[in-house]
């Protein structure tokens, strides 16, 4: 059996780590259905579907509810780094997000949207998942800036998570370093469209298992 001298072993990549696979499977075992309505409401809609043409009623109800959710998405003020300053500029009077019904809120308990603006470091990642978990459902996440999208200019840093979608499921990615307020607004409008036809089961982007 050929013994490999120490130090020559290839750099272990993340797939070899046993605990990482459990972490991935745990993360993917999120209950997928029932992310949109309570079980009682979905029982009612199933009942309505039994009648011929019931879809017309539920479709109309869905569009109304989605319109209500779309037009008052409250972001939690979660500024990490440089993109937070651009996020503040977007919240301020010139590029006002309150026109879109978004009231920046400090506590995750009252928020529907988390804009991850800045570099997610390994020390910050557990805090970020805790705050994302503490937000009531249904909730969305926008990854703002190339640091949050993929680690950005600090991708090769030892302390940087290579993109926030390894930690929480992300709905809209806004490119830029930092993205100017206009492109963040564009991202938020895209999010609103996504919410507008938020399908019944609320299927959402699972955290992507990127490999590099």
């Amino acid at each position, binding site marked *: 059996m050929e013994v490999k001298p120490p130090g020559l072993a290839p750099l272990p990549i993340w797939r070899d780590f046993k605990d990482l696979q459990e972490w991935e499977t745990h993360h993917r075992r999120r209950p997928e259905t029932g992310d949109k309505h309570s079980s009682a409401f979905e029982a009612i809609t199933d009942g309505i579907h039994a009648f011929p043409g019931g879809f017309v009623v539920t479709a109309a109800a869905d569009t109304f509810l989605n319109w209500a959710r779309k037009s008052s998405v409250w972001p*939690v*003020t*979660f*500024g*990490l*780094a*440089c993109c*937070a*300053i*651009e996020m*503040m*500029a977007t919240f*301020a*009077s*010139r590029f006002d997000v309150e026109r879109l019904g978004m009231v920046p809120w*400090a506590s*995750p308990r009252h928020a529907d949207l988390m804009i991850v603006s*800045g*570099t997610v*470091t390994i*020390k*910050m990642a557990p*805090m970020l998942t805790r*705050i994302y978990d503490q937000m009531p459902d249904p909730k969305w996440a926008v990854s703002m800036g190339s640091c949050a999208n993929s680690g950005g*200019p*600090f991708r*090769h*840093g*030892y*302390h*940087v998570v290579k993109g926030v979608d390894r930690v929480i499921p992300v709905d809209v990615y806004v490119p830029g*370093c*930092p993205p*100017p307020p206009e492109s963040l607004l564009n991202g938020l409008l895209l999010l609103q469209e996504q919410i507008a036809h938020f399908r019944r089961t609320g299927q959402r982007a699972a955290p992507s298992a990127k490999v590099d």
Partner: protein
Amino acid sequence: MASRNDSLTAATPPAGAPARAIREIDYTGSERLTMNMGPQHPSSHGVFRAVLTLEGETVVGVDAVIGYLHRCHEKLGESLTYVQYPSIASKTDYVAAMTSELAYVMAAERIGAIDIPRRAQYLRVLVAELQRIASHCLWLGTWCMDMGGALGGGATIFLYCIRERELVLDLFESLVGARLLYGFHQIGGVRYDLPAGWADQCRTTIDLIEKRVVEYEEMLDENTFFQMRTQGVGVISREVAETVGISGPLLRGSGVPFDIRRADPYCSYEDFAFAVPTEEAGDCFARYRVRMAEFRQATAIVRQILDGLPEGPISSRPGVKSVVQVRIPKGETYARVEGPRGEVGCYLVSDGGPKPYRMKWRGASFSNLAVLPHIIPGHSVADVVAIMGSVDPVFGEVDR
């Protein structure tokens, strides 16, 4: 946890400046509550976590936890070449990107003894002073929003200040093309020249900002809420200020007239006439007054530059073709810049290759934040918010 904080709070509240009379309250049996003013907090100005030990409303111990935005700047500094790193250098102090890039570029130029044309030096001073105005606007806005209730509905001053900041960012956008993080500086000079009509746009913006600064002072100076919240709060004595190594408006607010632009002039600052505003009280109000005076000094300098901008090239080196094109000879130096938050320095050790051997970034906010555990004990939780805002930390520079 409490025992370690006692060693921090062993420093008695600084004598000298008339701190608020703190009556010893003989609590019988009230335990200490340990609480997180954590990474995600409206007034933490970024990702800073203070573990506060409270006795009722009074803070008796602070354990500052930083590192939530540690992006390996110094390690990347050793693995990126002199041409690549300036684009990340502006992300250390991302609210004042122009001055943080300048420190790195000046360090490399000083080792390589590269001369910078006069026009490039004037342009560097011009954008540094405009950046100081924009950074102070953001400071005033976020600070007054933190103390929101006291100033008539949280976001009033924030929206005014961001409106002014947008005007300065428009200037930068037409000059460089970017709003917040610029690649304006390069080794040997500057990358962009003033477009046509930029100078008059800059003059109108400067005049407008000077009028607005007067409006802010009318709103804040005689505002009794503001005075109650800031006077006598967070007093830093000169001795504590120097030994901890705070710099910039904090140091000048405690009575030390030290300004790098005057003590160690760089980029032809000696050609401009400007005053170094200093206050004696050392509390939040003194720091506020120093920064408001700096608004006027910055606009004065910008006007002097716009009047006397020399002609000539803007960079003494050819355009960058390849990444390893810039080689700096062996040597080491410490170049420092007077950023809006204080002394931003870059200690560079080069070994002759295209990459630095060691690059230490002296962030102004790192030392400014180090003074908190020495001054916060004895204040109430609401004062912690006011002190944090007056220190104005930027966490790209603290955690590097």
